[in-house]
């Protein structure tokens, strides 16, 4: 047993039960927090009303982050929760109901920029941007971070049971294009991810996909389907841990969590490369407290605050200063922070309005075949 134990504490993260199922998370307002800070009504140092509305994923903040912020700034944070990006987008497309800070994933940041739903950030008000690892500043979905600040990131890869493998796992092949592990494979039930990673396996960039490539991936997946046990709802780590399957397409953070419970599990980013995802802090258009929002984002990017958040949510952090404060069992974990050469061949998937419906149709055909 070591200090790495804390990773096993919280199995319930935002990508678990709530998210994959499309269960509408009822916005829970933590009104009780007002007891901690300036109990509303007052004026914050930013000159705005001392309150802030934060729209976040479930279990995606440090245990005392909001109280600490209320204490240091006098701004009370009301947090409500969403379960999927689609829910967030659907809510904002009908007009901002008063949210100041939201946490969309990278492709939705792009989609919201295109839909003119995000406010431009004033970097002068976010000095803690210097804490961020530079590789997370120049990202294709928001060059120079004009609209978003990175909060966490994830990489897709293969989680597998070591003792059940017939050889080393270093390619997408056993998952997408082989009957070697028939009936022992679970893939993610996300049309876009499946088509893009299939294309990546076939040697294409996840952002160079054409209808011909989609057709090719579709044919490959239909051929592979008899060997697939199920398309999981982002609960792949549970399927792997319970012995239901031996190979699973999942996020590195999720597999890192179960590796603390079972020594026989490992994770790899295949040699063909993979897809990165990242959740970001943004200010939606029409936010009632934009200055408070900047102060809050700046606070979340603080090294000490970032460390506490990371300890609670156990996701890879883009915050280099916070990572430096974490124990080596976290910072040097090759699953949470995969080797640089593998990271170099991973890409963010750009949002593509015209391809998304084609992905969905292809996935429907794969499922119906």
């Amino acid at each position, binding site marked *: 047993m070591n200090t790495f134990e804390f990773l096993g504490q919280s199995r319930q993260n935002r990508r678990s*039960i709530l998210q994959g199922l*499309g269960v509408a998370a009822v916005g829970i307002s933590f009104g009780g927090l007002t007891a901690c800070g300036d109990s509303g009504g007052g004026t914050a140092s930013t000159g705005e009303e001392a309150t802030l509305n934060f729209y976040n994923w479930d279990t995606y903040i440090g245990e005392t982050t909001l109280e600490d912020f209320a204490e240091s700034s006098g701004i009370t944070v009301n947090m409500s929760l969403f379960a999927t990006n689609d829910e967030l987008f659907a809510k904002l*497309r009908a007009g901002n109901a008063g949210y100041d800070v939201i946490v969309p994933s990278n492709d939705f940041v792009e989609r919201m920029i295109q839909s003119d739903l995000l406010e431009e950030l004033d970097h002068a008000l976010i000095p803690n941007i210097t804490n961020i690892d530079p590789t997370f500043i120049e990202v294709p979905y928001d060059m120079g971070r004009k609209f978003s600040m990175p909060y966490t990131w994830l990489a897709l890869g293969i989680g597998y049971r070591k003792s059940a493998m017939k050889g080393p796992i270093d390619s997408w092949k056993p998952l997408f294009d082989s009957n070697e592990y028939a009936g022992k494979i679970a893939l993610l039930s996300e*049309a876009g991810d499946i088509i893009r990673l299939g294309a990546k396996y076939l040697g294409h960039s996840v952002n160079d996909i054409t209808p011909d490539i989609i057709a090719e991936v579709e044919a490959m997946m239909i051929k592979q*389907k008899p060997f697939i046990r*199920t398309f999981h709802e982002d609960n792949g780590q549970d399927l792997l841990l*319970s012995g239901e399957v031996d190979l699973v397409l999942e996020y590195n953070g999720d597999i890192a969590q179960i590796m603390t419970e079972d020594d026989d599990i490992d994770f790899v980013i295949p040699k063909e490369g993979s897809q990165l995802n990242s959740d970001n802090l943004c200010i939606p258009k029409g936010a009632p407290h934009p200055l408070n929002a900047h102060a809050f984002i700046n606070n979340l990017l603080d090294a000490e605050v970032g460390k506490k958040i990371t300890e609670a949510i156990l996701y890879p952090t883009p915050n280099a200063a916070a990572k430096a404060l974490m124990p080596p069992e976290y910072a040097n974990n090759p699953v949470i922070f995969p080797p640089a050469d593998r990271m170099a061949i991973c890409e963010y998937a750009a949002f593509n309005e015209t391809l*998304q419906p084609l992905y969905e149709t292809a996935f429907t055909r794969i499922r*119906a075949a």
Partner: protein
Amino acid sequence: MENWKSAKAMFAAVAAVPTFWLTFFFIIPLGIVWLYSFGTNTSLTEIEISGTFSNYARALDPLYLGILWKSILVAAATTVICIVVGFPVALAITFASDKWKPWLLLGIMLPFWTNLLIRTYALMAVLRREGYANQSLGWLHDNLGSLLPFIGLPAPGAYEPMELLYNNFAVIFGLVYVHLPFMVLPLYAALDRLDKSLIEASLDLGAGHFRTMLTIVAPLAAPGIISGIIITFVPALGAYLTPDLLGGPDSQMIANVIERQFKRANDWPFGAALSFILMYATFIAIAFQAMKSRQAEARQ
């Protein structure tokens, strides 16, 4: 006898709230979705109601009709199993003593107190490879197997767990589990009103139990059976959580496709067209059933 028609003010007062509710929270939203089904996406966030039928044309593609047909088969199988299992249960409750009846009914309704999602997860814990079902069967296999050599038979091999989860069996099992109360309650309501002396008469006149059941009880309980079929079949047809969680790679049902249109695909018009096709089909089925029953009444 006072007729409600003579107390119009009273009637209006009572009807106002439900009418308001139905109009604003059911008919109008549904109407908007219906309009979407004739719309086109003009941008990421806007839909223009252009009066196009292209969404319906796309929904009638063999791909989607095939999925719809499969969903109908799954829902039909669920309904049939629910009748076969639910009828004896309802009958047993009907003939139970008055002291026991409320407890038995409570037992039927108790699962409703737990969220569907939680019940589905519980089912996963039972059905999975190392779940309770396989553990119990494995225990029986090992213990009974060790007795076989005593009666001169060879000992069986190690227990190979059955694949109970992530296939169509699991989906139908899950749907039956969830929808059984919907079948039992209307059946019970119909059977409870049944004049028991008719059953006694049938038995006295020489009909067997099975024949009495088929020719006396079933026709008299027909309204309950039909409403049970409708309120089991319709939600089973629209199920999406159960196939998502319990199903295998090909256990996709039409509601899963609809869900994806409204979420990931961001194609609300097409999703609306798909859901209204489902609704038209349901309306036609109910209208057909109503027509049949009117014909049957006319013949009597």
